[in-house]
């Protein structure tokens, strides 16, 4: 275990810059975005130097810690504000700062016409700081601060254009759905403190093997709830689609590449809990499978390009969650898919932003068509990301997603076939809806009605897109050649036993099947969406209607949570008005009635007062006599 003195700067720099930009106000309008981008770039540089330092070490020395301050010290309970970077964290640090910096650069151009650009960059830096704290904290409590911080940044950025009430509502929706998950995390923290007497990762990891399976399952389920909230997994998935109200760079950074993958990080970080509780793992697998199919199905019917990509994000994170549920070897593949997804999905979101930039912020894909001719760079970079998410060899998704499908099939147990088939089906649907997005946007005939021709975006925008596209092409091969990432993460997630007791299907068969599913989905989409009308058809099949309505997720929430919630509130209001207020009013009424009677005594006549006094004296005297005799 080494100590490192630079970790704190990773968080402090963006946090400081965010505070400066917010406090200085309009003075910083001219150069705020440059400072923010520079700070993000420096954080990336620190991250890279930490990576090389870590790479030059071996064994336990690869983990570096830094104690910043004593936070809570009560009796035997101690929490220090400590940071820890290990093989798992550094992947995230590089992803967050790397993709983050690219998106900062992109945003300079994308937000150049917005008068609140400085505020936007301040929030972006706040997000970077919080997200880094999330992955660098050495205890659940430190992680929790970052967890809440990214929730705040996400809320602020979704509602960045809060002058539009719909966007403000979307921000609130995201925040509230996240709160539900946050309750899960805080309960998990309390449970692990009750069970292990500590909330640090190392302490809980040491205690986990000796704990009762019921306690571990409870903690695991609560952690899963937290992950579901942050990563938009079933049943807390409904906020992600609406979160697309935020500016597109936000969707790319927070709601595709980094924040929504925090749930995967949480589960991978808490692997000791899930390793020891098969029930919790089964829950994780169920949530992953349901969400990956849910997101994919919703994605097939969305005409809003960002919402289609959001549904795809949900589905891809479903894959990652599924992989984390598959046990030790799954963690590494989950992280690999997370990293490759970070590249290709962020790239595609930036592509979508570039399309919107050229199309006067039009998001309806039915109003696009044939844009490849007008936006060649966007089309190519988007296309590379598209091939990557499909899992076409040798693009990134092929290495990461096929591994997850393969692991699912060889999971062992009776359900392996079912899980594997679901993952395979998900891959087919992914191919269908992504092809739909690509064809509707870049191929076919023009369907836009505006006079002005769409134009390619400036260099500051296509530069980051090109970098991310290169990542979409190469990251899969680089991370998986010689099992690089699996070996790298092995000390953290204990992925040593890469043994399939009995292989249900060989890797080649699975790759073949996955490719067949992809080809089937792609061809179907090409046939179906080669020609689309500019207006969405209304006489569609029932499944399409259901998918357009997000499979009723909002209706469900509305009926099951919102309406009963309102009903309870209304009932409580009636009780408040009748019972509580009634009691108070009754007391007032009684006092008033008594005083109405008594006030007649206050008539102002001295002689009546004198009579009262004398009668009173007699009563006192009589009482005294009666008591004493």
């Amino acid at each position, binding site marked *: 275990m080494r100590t490192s003195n630079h970790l704190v700067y990773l968080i402090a720099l963006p946090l400081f810059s965010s505070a400066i930009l917010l406090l200085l106000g309009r003075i910083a309008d001219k150069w705020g975005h440059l400072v923010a981008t520079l700070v993000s770039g420096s954080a990336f540089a620190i991250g890279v130097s930490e990576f090389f330092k870590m790479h030059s070490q071996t064994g336990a020395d690869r983990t570096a810690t830094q104690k910043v301050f004593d936070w809570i010290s009560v009796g035997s309970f101690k929490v220090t504000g400590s940071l820890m970077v290990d093989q798992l964290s550094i992947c995230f640090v590089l992803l967050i700062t790397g993709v983050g910096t690219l998106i900062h650069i992109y945003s300079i151009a994308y937000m150049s016409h917005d008068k609140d650009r400085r505020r936007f960059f301040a929030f972006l830096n706040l997000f970077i700081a919080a997200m880094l704290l999330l992955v660098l904290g050495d205890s659940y409590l430190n992680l929790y601060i970052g967890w809440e911080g990214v929730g705040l940044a996400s809320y602020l950025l979704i509602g960045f254009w809060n002058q539009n009430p719909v966007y403000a509502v979307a921000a609130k929706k995201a925040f509230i759905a996240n709160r539900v998950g946050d309750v899960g995390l805080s309960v998990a923290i309390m449970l692990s403190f009750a069970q292990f007497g500590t909330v640090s990762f190392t302490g809980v990891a040491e205690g986990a093997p000796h704990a009762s399976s019921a306690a571990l399952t409870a903690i695991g389920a609560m952690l899963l709830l937290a992950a579901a909230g942050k990563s938009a997994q079933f049943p807390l998935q409904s906020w992600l689609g609406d979160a697309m109200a935020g500016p597109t760079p936000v969707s790319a950074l927070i709601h595709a590449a980094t924040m929504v993958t925090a749930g995967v990080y949480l589960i991978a970080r808490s692997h000791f809990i899930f390793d020891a509780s098969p029930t919790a793992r089964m829950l994780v697998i169920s949530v992953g499978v349901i969400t990956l199919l849910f997101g994919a199905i919703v994605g097939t019917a969305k005409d809003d390009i960002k919402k289609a990509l959001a549904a795809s994000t949900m589905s891809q994170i479903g894959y990652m969650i599924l992989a984390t549920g598959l046990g030790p070897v799954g963690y590494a593949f989950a992280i690999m898919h997370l990293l490759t997804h970070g590249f290709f999905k962020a790239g595609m979101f930036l592509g979508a932003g570039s399309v919107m930039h050229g199309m006067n912020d039009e998001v309806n894909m039915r109003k696009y068509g044939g844009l490849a001719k007008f936006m060649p760079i966007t089309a190519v970079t988007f296309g590379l990301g598209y091939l990557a998410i499909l899992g076409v060899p040798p693009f990134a998704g092929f290495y990461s997603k096929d591994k997850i499908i393969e692991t699912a099939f060889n999971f062992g147990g009776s359900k392996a076939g079912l899980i594997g088939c679901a993952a395979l089906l998900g891959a087919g649907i992914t191919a269908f809806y992504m092809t739909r997005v690509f064809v509707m946007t870049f191929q076919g005939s023009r369907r836009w009605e505006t006079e002005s021709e769409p134009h390619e975006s400036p260099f500051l925008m296509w530069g980051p897109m090109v970098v991310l596209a290169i990542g979409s092409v190469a990251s899969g091969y680089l991370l998986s050649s010689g099992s690089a990432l699996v070996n790298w993460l092995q000390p953290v997630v204990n992925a040593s036993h890469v043994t399939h007791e009995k292989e249900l299907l060989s890797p080649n068969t699975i790759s073949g099947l996955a490719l067949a599913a992809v080809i089937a989905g792609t061809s179907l989409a090409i046939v179906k969406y080669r020609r689309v009308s500019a207006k969405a058809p209304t006489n569609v099949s029932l499944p399409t209607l259901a998918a357009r309505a997000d499979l009723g997720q909002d209706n469900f929430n509305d009926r099951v949570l919102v309406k009963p919630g309102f009903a309870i509130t209304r009932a409580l209001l009636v009780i408040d008005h009748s019972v509580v207020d009634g009691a108070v009013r009754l007391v007032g009424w009684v006092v008033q009635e008594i005083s109405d009677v008594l006030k007649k005594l206050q*008539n*102002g*006549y*001295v*002689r009546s007062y*004198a*009579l009262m006094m*004398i009668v009173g004296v007699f009563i006192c005297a009589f009482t005294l006599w009666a008591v004493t005799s």
Partner: protein
Amino acid sequence: MDISNYLYLSIILFTIGSLGVLVRRNAIVIFMCIELMLNATNLALVTFSRINGNLDGQVASFFTMVVAACEVVVGLAIIVTIYRSRRSASVDDASLLRN
């Protein structure tokens, strides 16, 4: 003579005084009735002092006299003021704390 006769006298005087306070309207008469009640009390105190063979009751009656003297001064001043403002010494006319 039986010493309790003094107490009976005291009771009779006190009753006359209190009835006077209750039934008369003229503030001066009411005032005099109050003095009557006070002196009835003094008589009772002195009698008790005699019965018990100590001086406590007599001391208390001195206090009563002093307080009564002060009260007379203040009370008469109030009555005169009320009479000046209302041209009447009837307590029923002064039923409001305003003109």
